[in-house]
């Protein structure tokens, strides 16, 4: 893995980063509205950090954007009309009951990568994320940090234009968190749009280009990271940054 100073954001990413539009997107559960109608555009370089307390609707917003869930109302629109190639890294990595490399090969096979180049591409991805030595270890026997890196390697092999990450570091120790953050930076430098949820304010300060703040199923603000951390506009965000226990 290339060593990146995680405090430095690249000044600009390649300009073909896809733009994501939420047009009055809402999502209703069985009894209540889980996400109130929300409109925003992710057009800046990012990475976009989706923040807010537990139950604010962060994971839900990510799943709607990625297409795992269908909005009850409104539309999710991508800049070039069609859905760009995208991948998602979950809080709990989902690993098939196979070796690490077989997990990556499976993802490539599903995406119709020709048989000949799968193995090489999979091993390249593992090597990039420091997993070359455990390529043939059963994926589910890897440590939590290794599994999360494997999930990132699997996403990397697919060369997505958008990468969603749902609290990818919430169960990891500092060394593993550092590795994941470096990986996220690397995706970002390649021009991949990053949309990541976290409730760790320090992590958001390290990574964020812009912040989408949610609470209680409402998008409260969407501002550049500096503005968000220095001059939060909404009362909820002010309380969140001040470390108050908000709902």
């Amino acid at each position, binding site marked *: 893995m290339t060593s990146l100073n995680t405090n430095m954001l690249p000044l600009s990413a390649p300009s073909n980063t896809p733009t994501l539009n939420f047009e009055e997107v809402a999502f209703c559960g069985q009894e209540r509205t889980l996400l109130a109608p929300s409109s925003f555009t992710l057009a800046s370089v990012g990475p976009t950090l989706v923040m807010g307390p537990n139950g604010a609707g962060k994971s839900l917003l990510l799943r709607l954007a990625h297409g795992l869930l269908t909005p009850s109302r409104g539309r999710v629109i991508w800049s070039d009309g069609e859905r760009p190639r995208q*991948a*998602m890294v*979950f809080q709990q990595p*989902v690993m*098939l009951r196979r070796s690490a490399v077989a997990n990556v090969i499976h993802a490539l096979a599903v995406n119709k990568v020709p048989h000949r180049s799968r193995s090489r591409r999979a091993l390249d991805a593992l090597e990039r994320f420091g997993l070359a030595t455990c390529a043939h270890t059963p994926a*589910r*026997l890897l440590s939590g940090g290794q599994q999360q890196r494997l999930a990132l390697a699997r996403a990397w092999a697919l060369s997505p234009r958008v990468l969603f990450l749902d609290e990818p570091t919430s169960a990891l120790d500092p060394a593993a968190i550092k590795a994941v953050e470096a990986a996220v930076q690397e995706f970002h430098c390649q021009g991949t749009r990053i949309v990541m949820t976290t409730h760790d304010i320090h992590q958001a300060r390290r990574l964020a280009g812009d912040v989408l703040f949610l609470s209680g199923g409402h998008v409260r603000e969407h501002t550049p990271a500096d503005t968000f951390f220095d001059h939060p506009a909404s009362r909820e965000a002010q309380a969140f940054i001040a470390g108050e226990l908000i709902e």
Partner: protein
Amino acid sequence: MENNAFYVAISLLLDVDAALFSIVALSMQVSLLAVLVAALLGFPLGAAVALWRFPGRGGVIVTLNALMGLPPVVAGLTVYLLLSRAGPLGELGLLFTPGAMVIAQVILVLPILAALSRQKVEELLGEYQEQFISLGMSRARMMPTLLWDARFALLTILLAGFGRASAEVGAVMMVGGNIEGVTRVMTTSIVLETGKGNLPLALGLGIVLLALVMLVNAGAYLVGELARRRTG
């Protein structure tokens, strides 16, 4: 001493009697073939029921579960009626052949394989679903992945099906007819020898059958253990 069942069982195994060997071989052939056919039909069926939502799905699941307890004589009777001269498939002339026995055992084993694999695949799907949708997989594409990832559980299920097939007597008796050298298998021989009053031989055959079933179960256990250690 000659009347001791264990002695008979051991001497049956030691001086490999040609008649006994053909009986054991036919038992194995019929049951293995039945399990193979049932697996080729039952595993995809189980996985399909786990994967797709359709009207009447609940009914299908209940039926499969209930059919796991289908009495072998009922399966035998059904196949008998189908294959008898006057039956719809009478033309094939399969009644009282090993082929008929395979068909009857497929009917007995299929629900076990389908119902148990449905459960296992559904459990795996719950774990994998979001990742699969994220990878853009269709339900049809999920099926081979899920069946492969359930492989060790499926092997155990397969052995359970084999146990059922090799141990049943009612169905093979009805559609096979226990014809010496043609359709006589372990279980029908035991019934016959018991009827003739040749209890040591019947019991000896029973011990041989039990030994085979033990072997199968030991295999299932070992495979399960190996799987747990290797894939976590």
